[in-house]
C-alpha cells in the first residue's frame, strides 16, 4: 500500500508545483477534450495543429516586448490565432480555395514570422520555453486563465451543441433552416484558439494541441455518439495528465511531452483494442445472422 501511495499520491501531496501542474493539466483536458472531438469530426485535426503554430508570432511579440509574462503573451497569441483563423476561414468561404490550403498558407507565414521574432531576442532556453511550455512552473495567474478558458469552452459548447452537431452532420441543411452556420463555425474556431492559448502556457506551442487531438482521436474507437465521445476524451485527457506528471516526476522526464506521450499511449491502445479498433475490424467475420 505504502509503495503505491509513495508512487502515485505522495508527489502531488508533497509538492505545490505538482499540485498546480495537476490542476492546470486537468482543467486543460476537460476543456480541450470536447473541442478536439469536434475538430476530429470536422476532419480538422491537422487544422488544430496548424492553429497551434499560428499562435507563435503573437506570443513571440508579447515576449519581445515584455519578456516571459503571461498576459502579453496570451493576448498576443489570441490575436495571432484569431487573425489566422478568421483570415483562412474568410478566404475559404469567399473564394474557390478550400480551407486546408488557405489554412496552410496562413499558418506557414505565421510560423516563420514567429520564429524570426523569437530569434531576434532571447536565448535558446527561452525558445524551448515557448515551444514546449513549462507545466511545472504554472503560477496562479496561468491557472486562473486555464480555468476561465475551460469554463468558457464548456458553457459555449453546451449552448451551441445542437448547431455544432448540425454543422458537422449536414451543413447545407443547417444553412437552409438557420443563419447560424457560418457564425457557429467561427465560434468554434474561437474555442480552438482559446484552448490552444491556454495550453500554450503548460505545454508550449508545439504540444498544446496534443491534449486536444490525441484524447479525441482515441475516443473515436470507443463510442458511437458525440456526447459519449466527449466524455471519454475528457477522461483520457485526465488520465494522461496524471500519469504524465507522475512519469515526469519519477523518471525526470520533461513534463509536457510526458503528458502528451501518455495520451499517445492511450491512443495506441485504443487503436488496437477499442470497440471499433483494429482487433475488431481485422478479425475475420465468418459467423453471421440470417438477416
Amino acid at each position, binding site marked *: 500500500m505504502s509503495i503505491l501511495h509513495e508512487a502515485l499520491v505522495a508527489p502531488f501531496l508533497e509538492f505545490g508545483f505538482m499540485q498546480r501542474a495537476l490542476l492546470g493539466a486537468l482543467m486543460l483536458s476537460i476543456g480541450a477534450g470536447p473541442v478536439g472531438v469536434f475538430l476530429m*469530426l470536422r476532419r480538422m485535426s491537422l487544422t488544430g495543429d496548424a492553429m497551434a503554430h499560428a499562435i507563435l508570432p503573437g506570443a513571440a511579440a508579447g515576449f519581445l516586448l515584455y519578456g516571459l509574462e503571461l498576459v502579453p503573451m496570451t493576448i498576443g497569441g489570441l490575436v495571432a490565432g484569431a487573425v489566422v483563423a478568421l483570415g483562412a476561414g474568410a478566404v475559404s468561404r469567399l473564394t474557390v480555395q478550400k480551407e486546408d490550403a488557405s489554412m496552410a498558407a496562413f499558418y506557414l507565414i505565421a510560423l516563420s514570422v514567429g520564429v524570426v521574432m523569437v530569434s531576434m531576442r532571447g536565448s535558446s532556453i527561452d525558445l524551448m520555453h515557448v515551444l514546449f511550455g513549462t507545466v511545472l512552473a504554472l503560477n496562479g495567474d496561468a491557472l486562473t486563465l486555464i480555468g476561465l478558458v475551460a469554463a468558457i469552452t464548456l458553457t459555449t459548447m453546451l*449552448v*451551441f451543441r*445542437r*448547431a455544432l*452537431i*448540425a454543422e*458537422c*452532420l*449536414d*451543413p*447545407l*441543411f*443547417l*444553412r*437552409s*433552416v*438557420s443563419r*447560424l452556420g457560418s457564425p457557429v463555425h467561427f465560434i468554434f474556431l474561437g474555442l480552438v484558439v482559446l484552448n490552444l492559448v491556454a495550453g500554450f502556457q503548460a505545454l508550449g506551442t508545439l504540444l498544446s494541441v496534443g491534449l486536444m487531438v490525441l484524447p479525441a482521436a482515441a475516443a*473515436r474507437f470507443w*463510442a*458511437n*455518439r*458525440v456526447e459519449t*465521445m466527449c466524455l471519454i476524451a475528457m477522461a483520457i485527457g485526465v488520465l494522461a495528465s496524471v500519469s504524465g506528471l507522475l512519469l515526469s516526476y519519477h523518471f525526470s522526464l520533461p513534463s509536457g511531452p510526458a503528458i502528451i506521450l501518455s495520451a499517445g499511449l492511450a491512443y495506441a491502445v485504443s487503436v488496437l483494442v477499442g470497440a471499433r479498433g483494429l482487433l475488431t475490424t481485422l478479425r475475420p467475420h465468418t459467423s453471421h445472422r440470417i438477416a
Partner: protein
Amino acid sequence: MPDACLTFTDLTLGYGGHPAVHHLSGTVRKGSLTAVVGANGSGKSTLMKGIVGMLAPMTGRCVVQPGMRVAYLPQQSELDRSFPARVADLVSLGLWPRRGLLGRHRAGDREAVARALSAVGLEGFERRPIDTLSGGQIQRALFARVLVQDADLILLDEPFNAIDTRTVGDLVELIKRWHGEERTVLVVVHDLDLVRENFPQALLLARRPVAWGDARETLAPENLLRARRFHEAWDEDAPWCEQDHGHGDSRAWEQGRVP
C-alpha cells in the same frame, strides 16, 4: 394573386455573370404539386437554391409568401455519413424550425420523429447508426426529416437519383400525401413518365422557361424539342443581356389559371 405561394418576377439567377435561370416570371399556386424538368444544366437546382435564398438573384425577384415554412432537400446532400449519429438524430434535425438552438425536444417531438420514420418505412430504425444505412434508406430518412419539418413549401432536388423502383414508389406516395395536405411541393425530376403519371403541374426549364402548366401539355413533344434546342454550354463571350430587349419567353406564367 391571393393564393400564390411563390412569385418569380423576371428572375435571373446565375454564377459569375452567366445566367443559369434566365428571366423567369410566374407564380406557383399554394397547394400545387409541380415537377421541375429539363436537361442537366438547365437551371433546375439553381432555381431551388434561389427559392431557399442560398443564391441571391442577379436581377428580378423571387418572393416566398411571408410566414411560409420552407423545407429543402438538396441534390448533393452534404450529409456526412461517417458522423457518429443515429437515425433519430438525423431526423430530429427537422425539429430545428420549431425548437431552434436551445428549445428542449419534448415527448411530442420524439413521437413526431417516430411517426415520420414509420411513414417512410423505417420503423424501429431510431437507434441505428447512419453509417449502416443503404442509399435508399438514407433517402427515406431524409424524407422523414422533411416530414418532421412540417413545412408549407417543400423543395426536393432530384430525390429519386440512384433509388430503386420500390423506394421511388413509396416516396412518390409521400409526395402525393403532402399534396393532399395542401402543402406546396416542387420536385426536380428526370423521369418524364413519372411526371406524367404523378404530377399535375410541370415547369420545363432550358435556362429559360420553355413551358409551364399542366404536366402532360408541358411535356408535349414540341415543347421538349424546343427545350432541346437551347445549348447548355456557357459561352464565355456571350453578349450582355440587356433588360429592355424583348424576351420572347419572358411572359408571366400563371400556373393557377389552368382549369
